[in-house]
């Protein structure tokens, strides 16, 4: 099994949503998230162009490329997510592999970024997705399974609208944050939805 189609879909979704990510990030942050998303997309495409199709090697390559091109805090955390996921995919297959990868990505980002659930960061979309992936390993069809993970990320992302920022530059502007979702959480939700749409072909956005 390879994940090249999923990664291509993620790159496309990040490119297509760069302007919206910048708009959201400008509300409380420094407005560079769209730029970071664009760089991440380029890094993923470069990794795909290498022809590598082993899942673990491809995730490592993506992580390295992202680390090299997207040096912002958010880019560093996305690179970390890829590298952490890569280390976790080795021992398992199928749903267990996906659940392990998502959980490792959450753990890696939390360790490096020092944010926890509820701090209004990308964790708030990624952690619910990881939980849904772990909870649903033995139930439902594959499409249902991916849909539930995608929905969990989206619900988590929407919940950031009422969260107060605890981390980073946005912390100094709590009142401006309310009512808007966290831009990093939006990025995660967009990326996971795109990946799972590519995997199943029938996911609702």
């Amino acid at each position, binding site marked *: 099994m390879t994940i090249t189609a999923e990664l291509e879909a993620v790159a496309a979704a990040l490119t297509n949503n760069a302007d919206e990510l910048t708009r959201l990030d400008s509300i409380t942050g420094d407005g560079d998230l769209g730029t970071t998303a664009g760089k991440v997309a380029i890094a993923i495409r470069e990794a795909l162009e290498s022809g590598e199709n082993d899942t673990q090697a491809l995730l490592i390559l993506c992580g390295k490329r992202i680390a*090299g091109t997207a040096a912002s*805090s958010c880019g*560093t955390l996305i*690179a*970390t997510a890829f590298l952490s996921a890569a280390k976790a995919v080795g021992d398992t297959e199928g749903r267990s592999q996906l659940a392990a990868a998502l959980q490792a990505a959450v753990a890696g980002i939390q360790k*490096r*970024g020092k944010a926890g659930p509820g701090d209004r960061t990308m964790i708030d979309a990624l952690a619910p997705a990881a939980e849904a992936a772990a909870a649903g390993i033995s139930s439902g069809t594959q499409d249902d399974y991916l849909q539930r993970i995608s929905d969990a990320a989206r619900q988590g992302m929407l919940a950031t609208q009422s969260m107060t920022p605890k981390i980073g530059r946005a912390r100094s502007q709590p009142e401006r944050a309310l009512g808007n979702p966290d831009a990093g959480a939006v990025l995660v939700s967009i990326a996971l939805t795109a990946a799972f749409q590519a995997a199943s072909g029938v996911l609702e956005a």
Partner: protein
Amino acid sequence: MQKLINDPQHLVAEMLDGILLAHPDQLRSLGDVHSIVRADAPVPGKVGIVTGGGSGHLPLFLGYVGDGLLDGVAVGDVFASPTSEQILEVTREVDSGAGVLYLYGNYGGDLMNFDLGGELAELEGHVVKTVVGRDDVASAPKGEEEYRRGIAGLFLLYKVAGAKAATGANLDEVVATTERAAAALRSYGVGLSPMILPAVGRPTFEMPAGQMEIGMGIHGEQGIGREALGTADDVADTLLDGILADIDIRQGSRVAVLVNGLGATPAEELYVLYRRVHRSLAARDITIHRRWVGEYVTSLEMAGASLSILVLDDELTQLVDAPVRTPFFEQS
């Protein structure tokens, strides 16, 4: 803004270019001028020591690359972290096979990028360990040392780690000694006037005449509070008392002392501070085995000073005495 710059966007690159042109026998860059190693890196059999952080603190970080101190540095923009890619590049270049120590100050961006750079380096087979400087007693209370910032005391950690690595010690030994020094090190500073970021062009904070910020960080971070500017002796007492309240230094101890200027405070004033610190420690029967007075870790043109004290044991005494030769600092 009264600055000798060309384009603020090019300041860091032009500064690095100048340093490389001035010291080609001691330093070389890795293509990009922001990643710099000692000219003879890697030193065979020696643990490599890598640091990095934002620009604006010279001689920190780059000035301490050389014999007896550091092997490589990843330089960021003014007050901004270097990238994990730079850190990886420098790691590759300084690793002789004996492993690499990352030694830098406790700041969020630096932590993130050094950790990721180290993770990438480990994927390539390098062995990397990290010690983070957290010497600033003003940045978090006792019991919350992990949140403390790294300030001028970093110089003393470089001194210890660099000298230890030069003895041929292995990576674990260099880490253990550096951690022991970090636990025996405290710093405390005072800010008198703001710095001006070249790309911003305005002072980064307001400081009314006759005021000072006790405990201000080296990027102008808030300290413990504003007070009326005292005499040099008053300030020296405040800084020394703050350190002695945080670390127990017994009678008869030996220490190394750094009285550091932040950029715009003249050496004359630093020596007036040193005079008071020297006499106060002597009165407590604490011996200053070695002292450095001058600009070692600056904050652009901020006025102010900091005091750092490292409590010495026999090994640390030998290590602070060891010879050093770098572009900005020599000791024989």
